[in-house]
């Protein structure tokens, strides 16, 4: 009996991605497949036309698009760039400078600050800043997250900032500047475009501040300095402290306060460490396996957003995630995600169920077998996704900032995922082995020394195995168990690289 086409084959054929003479001949002969292809083809064409018209009718972008040169210059430099890249960037900056000389640049303060907020790297939270007023001077961490003992001078500075509604805990940040700016109802903004930086200047009305200025590095919109002019003629200059040269000093004249109470350190926790703590908590409660939980580092703060979590998981997360400097947000999606689960049942089952059950030798019903395979593939891919996400969240540059203990902890999370994945892959292999008892030998391949690359490889292979296994549930029993088993064994071989 000739097998029908799978939905994937039909859709790929319709989109011109599958040029297969045998398939084409089958579609020509088989009324059922032809009818299905025509129906989907009609729907697909109608949707594309609809999309095209929607695009024509959609509101156009409100501003002119930036040109590519400008985007290239604004793009953050790669972590480990090559010399030629730096030269190319210089040439681009030079070219842009000439262009700007000829054409005055129009930059919106609001847009610039918003971009600066989103582009701030969390690593900067560990850096130090110098704060100078007419009476005081101090070197301190850029971001304070813990409750500390403060001196009188610091209290005075804090009071000044509070009177202006300006965040003293992170004074040199685009987020703090913008939050203050937005808290003022009437203001005048201007942006001075200089060769290496943007200088945003704000004159508010009805604020303790007479004016404020923040300087943002052009290449990555990193805040370099901030100047606050108060109405009582006090002025405060905040700037980055030299990388190694300036040690932390409390606000003068109370220079002994902080040093005398070492049990309450004022240093912020290094940002990658906080991220690791968040990853550990999520891992501990099993919320790193595909739950809609986002971790975002913005302006020195780590925000964990959970979207549409069930109440039990939300409560677990709330109880577990009590890390200073980490903000937890719960979002209820406007379109309930349960729609996915409550929609119509699976598409009409046209599978040769009896044929499958014969091949399963009576060990399982088709339904039991399908449930077990789906559980194993879901378990496998969820772990592969989690491992890949972990590797992406902690690239080498960030991992290098962790202590030995923290690194061990990171390795522990990865090892958990690998061990759980191994169990799922073994289960999957045992199930597929019922249909394909003999397996071709699969080479483990050359082991890669870098766990990031291995995580990526595991993800790729498990996705391929998942796709192969999904053929078991296509409308017709034309899956090739041998090929599925080979795909699963490739994942198993890749897992061996982790031993």
């Amino acid at each position, binding site marked *: 009996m000739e097998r029908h086409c799978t*939905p*994937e084959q039909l*859709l790929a054929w319709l*989109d011109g991605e599958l040029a297969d003479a045998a398939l084409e001949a089958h579609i020509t002969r088989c009324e059922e497949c032809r009818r299905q292809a025509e*129906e*989907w083809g*009609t*729907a*697909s064409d*109608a*949707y*594309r*036309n*609809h*999309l095209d*018209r*929607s*695009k*024509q*009718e*959609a*509101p156009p*972008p*409100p*501003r002119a*698009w*930036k040109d*590519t040169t400008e*985007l*290239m210059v*604004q*793009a*953050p430099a*790669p*972590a*480990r*760039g090559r010399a030629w890249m730096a030269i190319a960037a210089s040439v681009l900056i030079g070219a842009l400078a000439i262009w700007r000389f000829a054409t005055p640049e129009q930059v919106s303060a609001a*847009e610039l600050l*918003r*971009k600066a907020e*989103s582009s701030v790297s969390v690593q900067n939270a560990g850096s130090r800043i110098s704060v100078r007023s007419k009476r005081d001077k101090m070197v301190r961490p850029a971001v304070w997250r813990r409750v500390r003992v403060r001196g009188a001078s610091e209290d005075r500075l804090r009071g000044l900032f509070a009177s202006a509604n300006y965040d003293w805990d992170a004074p040199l940040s685009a987020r703090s500047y913008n939050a203050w700016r937005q808290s003022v109802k009437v203001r005048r903004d201007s942006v001075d475009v200089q060769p290496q930086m943007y200088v945003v200047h704000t004159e508010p009305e009805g604020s303790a501040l007479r004016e404020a200025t923040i300087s943002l590095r052009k290449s990555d919109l990193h805040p370099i300095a901030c100047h606050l002019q108060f109405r009582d003629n006090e002025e405060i200059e905040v700037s980055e402290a030299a990388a190694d040269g300036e040690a932390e000093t409390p606000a003068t004249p109370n220079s002994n306060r902080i040093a005398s109470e070492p049990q309450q350190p004022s240093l912020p926790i290094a940002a990658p460490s906080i991220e690791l703590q968040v990853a550990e908590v999520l891992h501990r409660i099993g919320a790193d396996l*595909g739950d809609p939980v*986002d971790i*975002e580092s913005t302006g020195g703060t780590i925000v964990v*957003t959970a*979207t549409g979590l069930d109440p039990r998981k939300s409560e677990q997360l709330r109880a577990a995630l009590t890390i200073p400097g980490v903000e937890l947000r719960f*979002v209820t999606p*406007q*379109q309930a*995600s349960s729609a*996915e689960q409550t929609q119509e049942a*699976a*598409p009409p089952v046209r599978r040769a169920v009896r044929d499958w059950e014969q091949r399963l030798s009576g060990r399982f019903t088709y339904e039991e077998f399908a449930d077990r395979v789906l559980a194993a593939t879901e378990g496998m*891919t969820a772990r592969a*996704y989690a491992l890949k996400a972990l590797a992406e969240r902690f690239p080498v540059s960030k991992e290098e900032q962790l202590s030995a203990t923290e690194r061990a902890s990171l390795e522990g999370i990865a090892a958990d995922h690998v061990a759980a994945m191994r169990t799922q892959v073994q289960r999957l292999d045992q199930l597929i082995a019922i249909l394909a008892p003999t397996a071709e030998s699969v080479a483990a391949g050359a082991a890669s020394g870098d766990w990031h690359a291995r995580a990526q490889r595991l993800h790729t292979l498990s*996705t391929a195995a*998942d*796709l192969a296994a*999904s053929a078991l*549930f296509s409308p017709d029993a034309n899956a090739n168990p041998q090929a599925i088993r080979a795909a699963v064994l490739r994942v198993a071989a890749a897992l061996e690289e982790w031993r």
Partner: protein
Amino acid sequence: MNIEEQFHRLYTEAREDVYHYLLTFQLDPASAQDVTQEVFLRLYSAWKSEGQIRNPRAWVFRVAHNLGLTTRKRSARWEPMEESGPPAGAADPEHQTLHKERAQRIQEALKELSSQQRQVLHLRAEGLKYREIAEAIGIQVSTVSVFLTRALTRLRKAIE
């Protein structure tokens, strides 16, 4: 073609498509444009750092999807235009009426789909492959096929 030339070409060709995809996240036009430019800024940075990106167009939509979700969480929702008017040149009133009815039926059918189903449909129409769609919206590859066939079946019923 070097990276800069490839980047320029993709930016010119795809920025409007990405912008329209972001409008489906109920972002206002200004935010959608900002996010689009941010996506390409990140693309260029990633391209320079990694040397090669397997499918830059799919990469762009994946990042646009993530940034679109994040931006939507932060900002107020914007109600996009839903209805699609008659095609250009369709002056015949009868044609216009037929077209309007059909567009309304498609719009109604789209409303009945889940957001993920609509996204799968949209990204497929933008030329992304199953794996790329799965990576973009964080679902399994097999689910992409299920969503797509469900969505097309519903649309087909709507325009019958």
